[in-house]
């Protein structure tokens, strides 16, 4: 592989620090993005050789997605880009006119978005959507047969059968949808593919597959790729070079392995430390540091006292579709139990049955030894509370944080004066009471959601993918908070996640769910270090693939 001119030193702010390789497929110089309130992304340069991948790493708000959109000419209103994009076939001076972008987008540069659940139109068949790209790029009008043949070929390239063309996006799994999106994005044979967090919305076992698929297609076509991600672990072995961006500035750049093994900037180091898949394997230091390791012992002692919740042989059907086949789950007092599975495994349904948000078709749920009838009516708020995945939609945007929490306190019959204590419990400053959810970051909102759940002092806290929507470093903070709360309040936690690495950090025991059945369960440590079921082995292998080999 040709060595590009990028060196393992922080970029100089003026963007002239790195020269451009003459063999590059894509060379971007002086890319700058101006927002309504001044410069949001400081000038930076990069180049990508044919068939190679450059990873752009940063947390949300770092400017990485804006950079991607700037290169695809899709900046939102109010933002403008400056700089030069040199492709093998054309040079684009930014800002470019609509006519220039029309000739560029699709044919030369294509952008793949994060969420395959929203990036395809839900009311058009997958084949139609791929066909649209083919039509847009071809100079002549294609006949029906030609188009169908091209669509089938595009689908075959992403390892999908031809009949997917007839399917609507909602009939496909997340991984299949992202394959369809890749087929649509690449149907025009672009020189540069920008992939903006292409696997963040997918399950662990799909993530690696999609990235490897992209890698293969890229090598086959000699296409350059810009991979945008918040996940440093993900890019190991999948990108030749990496740029780390923070607050709109490149803080570190270099060859991927050397950046990962010897990060020179403190921010890169922090990112690596915060990444669960990268750190946890280094002898559980994080567990001890966050106090979870210690409480695991406490929980072991506590669990002798008895079980708080036992769900026995739960079956749940929606119409003639059965999503749970006799699932049994137990949560002991003070215990943290993880349920791991992919989307569609039934992990959220079992949590919702326990919370009374779904009516189980059959089975018994006991709380504290007393059987609960299905549904919300048989449960009291003090028994259990649930924290949902998306802190952006679970808080009422119209009322202040303080009012949300006071309402919750009133339900519990607690005085409004407990508000400050509640905010302190989740480590938020007390002046947050007057803020509205829109003024808070994702992590802060999730803290508020946790505080609201804890206002009624529940015995069981159900966390349904509660950290999945957050950046890794924020994720870690929330996990640490949960670990702390668990010790301070003696909480039992049922923790639902698709992410093995996250569950590993918090849970004492773990259940692995697949197609509505528990395929494996036991002490977290045992299950994850010596998985017996092939599916668990595959999941563990997938999560290890992302981690470095120390």
């Amino acid at each position, binding site marked *: 592989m040709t060595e590009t001119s990028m060196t393992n030193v922080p970029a100089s702010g003026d963007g002239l620090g790195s020269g451009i390789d003459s063999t590059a497929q894509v060379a971007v110089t002086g890319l700058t993005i101006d927002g309504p309130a001044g410069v949001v992304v400081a000038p930076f340069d990069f180049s990508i050789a044919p068939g190679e991948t450059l990873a752009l790493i940063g947390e949300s708000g770092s400017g990485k997605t804006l950079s991607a959109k700037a290169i*695809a000419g*899709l900046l939102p209103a109010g933002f403008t880009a400056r700089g030069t994009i040199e492709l093998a076939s054309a040079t684009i001076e930014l800002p470019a006119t609509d006519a220039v972008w*029309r000739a*560029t*987008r*699709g*044919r030369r540069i*294509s*952008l*793949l*978005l994060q*969420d395959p659940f*929203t*990036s*395809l*139109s*839900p*009311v*058009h068949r997958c084949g139609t959507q791929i066909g*649209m*790209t083919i039509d*847009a*790029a071809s100079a002549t009008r294609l006949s029906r047969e030609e188009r169908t043949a091209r669509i089938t070929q595009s689908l075959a390239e992403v390892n999908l*059968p031809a*009949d*997917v063309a*007839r*399917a*609507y996006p*909602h*009939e*496909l*799994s997340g991984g299949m949808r992202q394959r369809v*999106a890749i087929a*649509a*994005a690449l*149907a*025009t044979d672009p020189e540069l593919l920008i992939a903006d967090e292409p696997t963040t919305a997918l399950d662990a076992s799909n993530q690696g597959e999609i990235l490897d698929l992209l890698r293969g297609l890229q090598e086959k076509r000699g296409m350059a790729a810009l991979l945008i991600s918040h996940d440093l672990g993900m890019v190991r072995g999948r990108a030749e070079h990496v740029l780390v961006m923070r607050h709109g500035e490149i803080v570190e750049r270099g060859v991927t392995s050397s950046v990962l093994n010897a990060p020179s900037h403190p921010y890169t180091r922090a990112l690596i430390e915060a990444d669960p898949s990268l750190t946890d394997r280094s002898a559980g230091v994080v567990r001890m540091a966050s106090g979870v390791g210690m409480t695991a012992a406490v929980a072991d002692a506590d669990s002798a006292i008895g079980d708080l919740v036992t769900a026995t042989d739960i079956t749940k059907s*929606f*119409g*003639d*579709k059965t999503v749970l086949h006799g699932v049994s789950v137990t949560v002991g007092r003070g215990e943290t139990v993880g349920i791991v599975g992919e989307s569609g495994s039934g992990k959220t349904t079992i949590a919702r049955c326990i919370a009374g948000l779904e009516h189980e078709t059959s089975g018994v749920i006991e709380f504290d030894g007393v059987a609960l009838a299905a549904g919300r009516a048989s449960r009291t708020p003090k028994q259990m509370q649930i924290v949902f995945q998306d802190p952006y939609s679970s808080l009422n945007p119209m009322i202040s944080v303080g009012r949300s929490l006071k309402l919750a306190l009133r339900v519990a019959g607690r005085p409004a004066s407990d508000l400050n204590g509640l905010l302190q419990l989740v480590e938020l400053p007390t002046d947050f009471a007057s803020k509205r959810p829109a003024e808070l970051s994702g992590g802060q909102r999730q803290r508020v959601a946790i505080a609201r759940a804890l206002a009624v002092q529940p015995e069981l806290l159900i966390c349904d993918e509660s950290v999945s929507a957050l950046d890794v470093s924020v994720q870690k903070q929330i996990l640490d908070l949960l670990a702390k709360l668990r010790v301070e309040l003696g909480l039992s936690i049922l923790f639902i996640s698709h992410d093995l690495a996250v569950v590993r950090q918090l849970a004492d025991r773990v259940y692995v769910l697949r197609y509505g059945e528990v395929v494996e369960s036991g002490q977290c440590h045992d299950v994850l270090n010596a998985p017996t079921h092939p599916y668990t082995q595959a999941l563990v292998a997938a999560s290890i693939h992302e981690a470095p080999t120390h």
Partner: protein
Amino acid sequence: MTTTPIARASQARSLGRMLVVRVLGTIGILLVLSIIVFSMLHLAPGDIVKNLLGNRASSPEAIAAIRAQYNLDQPLYMQYLIWLGNTLTGDFGQSIRLQDSVSNVIGSRLGITAALSGLAFLLAVIVAVPLGVQSAVRSGSWIDRFATGFGIVGLSAPTFAVGLLLLYTFAFYLPIFPVYGSGDGGLDTLWHLILPAITLALGLGAIILKLTRTAMLRELESDYVTFGRARGLPDRQVHLIALRNAAIPIVTGASLVLTFLVGGTVLAETTFALPGLGTLLQGSVLFKDIAVVQALTLLVAVTIAIIALLADLAYIFLDPRIRAKESAQ
């Protein structure tokens, strides 16, 4: 998972079952409505016989004839069943005011109202949907400002005022269109209906415009629009994809305003002196011509029920996700 031919066949079967359920539900609602409409006869203030006699001389023979005609000696449920039976066979009784069978009276005016409503709806959709799309696509431009202004005027201007204004401008000062009446059929009738249709379409169009603009703005924000542009689809195609997705809220809204249109024709028909159902309803209510009012109420109810049914079916046609959910139940 991709759907296999077997899955598709069972989906089609359950769709058929769902269709039957929807139609049966609509029939149930209409039966309940028919009871209410029937009881109008008994709930109308004053003596039933006197109401039914109208301004005819009240001789004992006339009263006996009325009692026999309306089966007033029978128990109430028999009266209803007989009335329902007659209604279902198209016999709505006699109009006291017009001395003709109700079905004849309504039949002779239905065409005008149907043509007027249809024309107004067509005009509203043809103008408002493209304008709404353009105003969303070019949000903030002069076309958007024009559309917004048009929307406010259309929503706030009362139908009769718009009608009068149009009459003054395009029939009196600029004698392009006729002032009143329904013409001699065919193209002449169409010519006569244009001003009243515009009058009605203005309010309707304003609502459809607002709905289209809002729905399009939301769809244009979505990821699949960005992704469409990112892979080089022409703007026109991207807008069509967005419009196809926005069609679901637009159809809901349009079906709601269409039901509103059924009542709105009264004002337009009065202003333009059109002999349609609106003027008939107005006259019959004033005259306590109960048989006609009953028949018209039922007709409006049936129309609205059919529109609602069509809107429901349109969702299933427009949104494959609803189709999947419906057939899973």
